[in-house]
Structure formats: C-alpha cells, structure tokens
C-alpha cells in the first residue's frame, strides 16, 4: 500500500502565509482531569507553540461536591465532619477554621488548654502538609516516587499522632465549638514531643538532598515569577504570597489562638519564583517545630471544652460572622449567616488554593510545558478545597 505521489499532493496542507510556516501552529492540549501531576482532578487547556505555553485556561468543577449546599441542609455540628473533606491533607486546620468562625458567630470562649491543643495540632498539620507538598513537588519535577517516600514516612508518624488522639488518620473531626473533643494524655504529649524533636533531622536531610541540588535550582529558579502587586491584587495568601516578599500571615495579623504568646518568625522570599515558594515551605517547617516546642512547655492543665455550649440543638443568634485562620495553603475562612435555626442560612468557605490559582496563567505564559507542572506543584492545590 504505497502512497502514490498524487495522494501525497492531496494531503499537502493548504498554502499558509510564509510567517507561520516557520513558527508552526498552536497545538491545543488538555492536561486533563486524569493526569499524573495535577494533584487530583484539575484540568488545564493549554495552547502550545512548540514547547512554549501561549494560552492556559484552567477548568474546575471535576470534584465539585456541593459542600456549601450540603452545609445549608445539615446542622452546625453536622458540618464539622464535612470540613475534614475540604482540604483532605489538613483536616485539623479546617476544623479549627470552622470552629473559630462558629465561635465568633455565637460568641463562645475557648478554655486555655483547648487553645493550646489547637495550636499544637495545627502546627503538626502544617508540618505534614509541607512535607507532603515537597514530596509531590519533586515528584512533578521528575524525581519519581523517592522524595515522596521520604515525605510520606514523616507524614505517617504525624498521622499516627492524629489517629491515637482523634481516632482517624486523615478525617479527625476533632474540634468542637468551644474546645476540643478529647483531651491529650501526658503520654500522647510526650510521644508528640519525641516526634517533633526528631523532625528537624528530616528537614536537614531534605535541605541537604534537595534544596542544594543543582537540578532543582535549575528547574525552579525564576520560573513562574509573581510580582508582589499582582499577588496582593489577586488575593494570593499563604506561603505563595510570602514568597513574593509581602509580609502577611494571619497568625501575626489576627493573633488568634494564643499565637502572640509564641515567638516565631515569618520567612519571606524576594523573587516570588518557584524556588522561593519551595524554600518558604522548608523554612516554615522549621518555624512550626519552634512553635511546637514552646507550646509543649507552656500547655496548662484545665478543661478542654467550654461547658456552657449546647451540643444537641445548637442555635446561634441571628447574625453573620467571617472567621479565618492561616491554613498551610493560605488564608482559610468560613463565612456563616445564621437565621436563628439549627442549620446555617448561608455557609461559605473561602478556599485559599482556589483563589491562588487565579494567576496560574500569568505565571505559566512563556514557560515550557515541563515548567507548568512545576509551577502548579508549587502552588499546592488540593482539589477538595478548590472545587468544594
């Protein structure tokens, strides 16, 4: 079946203006819902010119599980287990953000020990989230699997802590309005202290293996630069914002949950490129270990839940409230409108990774396809929170 000359002529492309014959046309590719390094079901329609990205349109909604509609049909306490499934890497911080905004809505105080437990668990969540992120980021860079094994080894230790305390590895559902559900025993605190004392060894190992590695430096430095003005205007929060040099951390700004009592610094980047974002996570892990050490010493004895809060028919007064915390991915906020009933009238989640994706196209234009994966990996998105 040889292709004769005539058939070849017929297949010849219609004459195209001389200019574009050299550059070649745009190739439409969809880095679709099922992709090894989109961290879940996230799709990008990319128009490529050779290797360089010319257009990039993100497509969301493949994991839109109607969290807010269900939030309106379920009681206040009933939504607490749903918040675990929002950002399924950091269930403790989701619970805390929701509990904080309901406490603001209903005007509930939290006893000291509960506040300390919340800080400890939030910082532990930050450790395992940043460790997993670095594992996945290097996964996207091509170091397939091995750094992820290191990261998940550390993550398993912290998940054991969560499981022994709250009963479940990932879906802890641990916090209640006005405190926590279970008290941390002395052995648990001692065991947690031992794990936290050994965590810096993992951070140093990571820093030695990866941060100084020239392949990582070549692949991440001045890739996906973000200017501070664009970051502020696009509502970017969390390590991604601090990588551009804007000093804004909700723990310092709002001072919720006894954070002013702890001495910790906020790492800031200068160029806002992927390497700075990677370094933000590494340095924040160091800071979190510092906070944990101080919290372990200062944790007082005492009740862990405010006895005056009704569990059964919990009806906050009519009104609205917006509470926010510094989740590992950014500023996680809950906006609740109550009409006096047992169900919230409106239940809104401010998802940090969804809004951090606003400037994904601005960061990726002009870079090659391989860089798009690294940039997306450095934003640290979790689809449960992006699509809600």
């Amino acid at each position, binding site marked *: 079946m040889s292709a004769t000359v005539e058939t070849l002529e017929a297949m010849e492309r219609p004459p195209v203006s001389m200019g574009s014959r050299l550059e070649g046309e745009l190739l439409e590719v969809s880095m679709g819902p099922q992709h090894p390094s989109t961290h879940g079901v996230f799709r990008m329609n990319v128009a490529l010119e050779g290797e360089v990205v010319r257009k990039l349109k993100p497509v969301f*909604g493949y*994991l839109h599980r109607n969290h807010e509609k269900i939030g309106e049909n379920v009681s206040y306490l009933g939504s607490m287990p749903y918040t675990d*499934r929002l950002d*399924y890497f950091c269930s403790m911080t989701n619970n805390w953000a929701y509990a904080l905004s309901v406490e603001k809505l209903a005007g509930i105080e939290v006893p000291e020990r509960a506040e300390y437990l919340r800080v400890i668990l939030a910082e532990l969540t930050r450790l395992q989230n940043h460790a997993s992120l670095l594992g996945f980021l290097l996964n996207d860079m091509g170091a397939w699997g091995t750094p992820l094994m290191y990261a998940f*080894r550390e*993550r*398993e230790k912290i998940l054991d802590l969560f499981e022994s305390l709250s009963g479940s590895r*990932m879906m802890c559902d641990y916090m209640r309005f006005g405190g926590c559900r279970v008290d941390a025993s002395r052995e648990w605190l001692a065991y947690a202290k031992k794990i936290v004392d050994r965590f810096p060894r993992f951070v140093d190992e990571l820093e030695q293996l990866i941060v100084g590695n020239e392949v990582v430096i070549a692949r991440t430095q001045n890739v996906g630069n973000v200017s501070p003005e664009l970051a502020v205007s696009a509502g970017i929060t969390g390590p991604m914002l601090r990588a551009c040099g804007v000093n804004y951390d909700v723990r310092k700004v709002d001072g919720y949950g006894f954070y002013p009592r702890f001495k910790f610094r906020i790492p800031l980047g200068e160029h806002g490129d992927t390497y700075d974002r990677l370094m933000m996570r590494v340095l924040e892990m160091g800071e979190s270990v510092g906070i944990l050490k101080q919290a372990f010493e200062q944790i007082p004895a005492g009740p862990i839940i405010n006895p005056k809060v009704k569990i059964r028919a919990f009806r906050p007064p009519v009104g609205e409230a917006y509470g926010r915390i510094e989740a590992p991915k950014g500023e996680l906020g809950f906006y609740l409108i109550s009409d006096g009933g047992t169900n919230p009238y409106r239940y809104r989640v401010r998802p940090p990774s969804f809004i951090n994706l606003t400037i994904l196209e601005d960061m990726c234009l002009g870079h090659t396809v391989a860089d798009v994966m690294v940039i997306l990996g450095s934003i640290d998105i979790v689809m449960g929170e992006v699509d809600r």
Partner: protein
Amino acid sequence: MSEGIDEVLRSKLQQQGVWVSSMQELYNWGRKNSIWPLQFGLACCAIEMIATAASRYDIARFGGEVFRPSPRQADLMIVAGTVTKKMAPQIVRLYNQMADPKYVIAMGACAISGGPFKQGYNVLKGIDRYIPVDVYIPGCPPRPEALLHAFMELQRKIDEQKLSGANKAAHLDSEQPSEFPVPAFGKHDLEPPANPDVFHPPKLERV
C-alpha cells in the same frame, strides 16, 4: 481449584518432586500477581491510595506498585474518591480505553454510593451506574489495610476465572461488551442518568 487436576494425585506427585499445573492456573497466577493500577485519584481516598503505595503499607508486596498514568498500560482502575457528574463521562471513557482484562475497584463510600456527599446535586450516586465494578471497599477513606484487602480479594477473584467453558472470564467472552456508552452532559443531569444494562439496583419489595 479447577476440575481438571485431581488434588490428591497432585500432592502425591509433588512429594516425588513432580510439579503439575494447568495453563489456566499459570495464566491466572501470572496475571494476579502483577496487576498494574491506573494512576487515577479523585479525592481523599486517592491520598490513602498513595499512602498504601508508600513505604509503610507497601502495595509492592502484592505486585501492584506500578501505577501507570496511561489507561493503555493499566489493567486495574481504582476509583478512589467522589465521582461527580462532571467527571463521570471522563471515567467511563478512561474505562473504555483500558486494555481488555480490566478490573474496577470502587474505593470508598463515595465511589460506591455517593457517600457523605449523596445529597449533592453534582455527585453521581455510585460509579456502578455506568461501569461494572469488581470489588467494593467501604470506608471514608478506607484504611490502607482495607485497600490491601480489596487487592487480595481481587486477586482471589482473578484466580477463579475460567479460560473456557460457559462462565469463562468476561474478557475472553466475545459477547460481553468491553465498552460502555459514555453519558452526555444534559440540561439538568447526565443523560442517561444510569446505564440500564450495567446498573441493576435490587428491586426492594416494600412488604
């Protein structure tokens, strides 16, 4: 295990150092110990699937650690997470594009029946509405050990597949379809809402 070989005879021969097997046993033994899962995580269960593939709960002990990104090279699809109506056509298309001896594990309550998000308007109440599922694992998310148990369950199921005869394995039987129609996006819901020849809900007689 298979009618062909008489077990007593086989054990006697084995004592004499003679090893007897049948092609079906070899065929199933080879396939069950090297299942390549499709790299396909939807939601929280995907993180437990990765934890299973990580070093502590090591799925490599069962030969399943090779996670293939492309459906062409995968023979097991672990539907790990909530199946939304926007994602359902993609899942069915991926299932169709997989090579033939293919199996499906519905991991987690969401993939089985919509799970905690059942009241959602965009949530498909279970993936077995569109594609046949071999092993269901309840749990939200199921622990890594549960996924390993499902993996062993699937291996047991593969082991009992017949090469020929009436109830031979689905992929060897030319009547059994290896493709299922991909649902289309409708105005209010997916069209059709369920695939009748795959989804057989039990008719509960309201006594």
